[in-house]
């Protein structure tokens, strides 16, 4: 066990996988000499060679398309999109190609690739360095979408993603990079894709979240336990696609109340799927309406501090306050 923050956990896991398997190559903008804008691949161009740590041209569709080609021909590419906000030009290569190749070839071809990208806000990134993009991708059959919240999960899920025979979008919340620390088991353990985790057990209500929001929920749950003795079960979805419906629904059946919290724009966000799954499968177990807290429906977080703060916290203590309301309901 070693204490690490999320960015270090990602770096160490990726580094060790690369050291162990020559099929793995890293490609993206500034991943070489610069070592990535978050320094994840610092020094790797020298260590693994320019052939394996590839500074690409500024062209995201190309990055993903080229990675697909590599995956089709025996490599295990890990494509880095510098910020999730810049993955949009590659949408077609993801939807039409990476996610469809196996299906359209009736199983003849597979695309074992990972797209890693830092997402999310609260780091003064403004409209184009703050976006949450998971809802777009979780809706695409044929690609897995992973959203680790802790250093341990980041490492274990990244290894699973690299070893997965299908494309995986691996989303790293920027705000967790340095602010979230935790114990990481030694060794190349795998955290399974598609399995949610109860990060904290409880009886009064179930709070479902992922990414940075998960930590806001855990904080709120701790405060509520102290303030009012409420017992909140906090579920970390960890993988949005495939979604672990069983863990979510069992928890809600047990507690009888559900809230879903996510940072992304609320409407048509990933939380809608989670909430509506609960409404279909656990309706008669519910003692209160499902509470869904998402980000406001504005393009993304503005730059100015007061506006950014409004996005993350439109009302004072908003997650805590609404959790308390639900617990009391």
């Amino acid at each position: 066990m070693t204490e690490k923050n999320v960015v270090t956990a990602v770096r160490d896991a990726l580094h060790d996988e690369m050291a162990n398997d020559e099929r793995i190559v890293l490609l993206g903008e500034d991943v070489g000499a610069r070592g990535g804008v978050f320094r994840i691949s610092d020094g790797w161009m020298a260590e693994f060679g320019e052939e394996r740590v590839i500074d690409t041209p500024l062209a995201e569709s190309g990055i993903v398309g080229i990675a697909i080609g590599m995956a089709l021909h025996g490599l295990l590419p890990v494509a880095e999109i510098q910020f999730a906000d810049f993955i949009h030009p590659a949408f077609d290569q993801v939807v039409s190609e990476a996610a469809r190749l196996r299906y359209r070839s009736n199983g003849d071809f597979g695309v074992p690739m990972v797209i890693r990208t830092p997402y999310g806000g609260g780091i003064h990134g403004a409209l184009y360095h703050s976006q949450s993009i998971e809802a777009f991708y979780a809706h695409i059959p044929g690609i897995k979408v992973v959203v680790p919240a802790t250093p341990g999960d980041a490492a274990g899920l990244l290894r699973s993603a690299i070893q997965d025979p299908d494309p995986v979008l691996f989303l790293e919340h920027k705000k967790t990079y340095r602010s979230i620390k935790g114990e990481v088991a030694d060794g190349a353990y795998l955290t399974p894709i598609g399995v949610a985790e109860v990060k904290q057990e409880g009886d009064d209500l179930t709070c479902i979240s992922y990414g940075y929001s998960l930590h806001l929920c855990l904080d709120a749950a701790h405060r509520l336990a102290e303030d009012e003795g409420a017992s909140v079960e906090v579920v970390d979805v960890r993988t949005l696609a495939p979604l672990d419906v069983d863990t979510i629904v069992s928890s809600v059946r047990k507690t009888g109340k559900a809230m879903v919290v996510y940072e992304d724009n609320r409407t048509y966000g990933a939380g809608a799927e989670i909430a509506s799954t609960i409404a279909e499968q656990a309706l008669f177990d519910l003692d209160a309406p499902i509470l869904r807290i998402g980000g406001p429906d504005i393009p993304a977080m503005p730059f100015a501090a007061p506006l950014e703060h409004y996005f993350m916290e439109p009302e004072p203590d908003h997650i805590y306050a609404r959790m308390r309301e639900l617990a009391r309901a």
Partner: protein
Amino acid sequence: MSTRVAETPHGALGLSADDLASMHRLLLTSRLLDEAALRQNRMGRAPFVVPAAGHEGCQIGTAWAMRRGTDIWLPYYRDLGIVLSAGMTPYEVFLGVFAKADDPSSGGRQMPAHWGSRRLGIISGSSPIATQVPHAAGIAYAAKYRGEDAVVGCWFGDGATSEGDWHEGLNFSGIHRLPVIFVCENNQYAISVPQSKQMAVKDVASRAEGYGFPGVVVDGNDVLACYGAMKTAHERARAGEGPTLIECKTYRFMPHTSDDDDKSYRSRDEVEQARVRDPLVQFASYLREHGLLDDASHDALRAEIKEEIDEAIRAAWDAPDPDPDTALRHVFQEREEEQ
């Protein structure tokens, strides 16, 4: 150093009479198969087909420089002649036309002409135009990385050159001097959009310079010229000298697909003019001139191929449809497929 001058144009290219005969068979197979598929469509037995007629010269000419089993093929939907050259059989093609369970490309999941076969090294293609161009670059990168001798061939139309993916794929290939050959089958139309509204230049090949590798224009109706250009490109690729962009000037004799009506956007006269330069007619003349073909052998060959195609149609028609219960399969790798 003494240079031995080959007596014939094909000899100069290193092609034997046997090679020419095989090429001729491919040309005829492609054309006759194409016509037969369209007939199946008109008979109501095939909801959708993509005619290739007119393109056979540049398809079979360029494909002939590729090596089955070693090289990788990324054809687009009009590339019947390419996939026949890569080893797909008429029976397999008709399994696709009839969307049968055993269709090697997709088990009937995709529209006909969306080719693919891991066994043959034909990368599965989609409908969105030009997406295969970055794939070709990535495959070529992987081949080079793994120290393989493979060359990647990537075919597309003139319309495809306008997509961002086309630009991004060529640019990366140039930077890394990858063993990939880009072949533009310029038939002067993207469905109805004429070349003048697709680009402000006469030659697509003029773009290659901007990517740091050679661009070559070749008469797509001249099979040997296409072969020659591809052969040079193939040697360049294997020698580590990087990509080539080959532009074959060609023409599509038929509508864009069986759903299209080309009378709305081009005159019959224009089409007739183009047919005069039919690559099959020209290749047959060449063979005749060199004493490699006469009426009798030509007729016999046609009859033989026709028979093969008729048999392929019969067998493919009788093959089983996909089972609806398989519709949910292969979204992700299934357990039993694991390596």
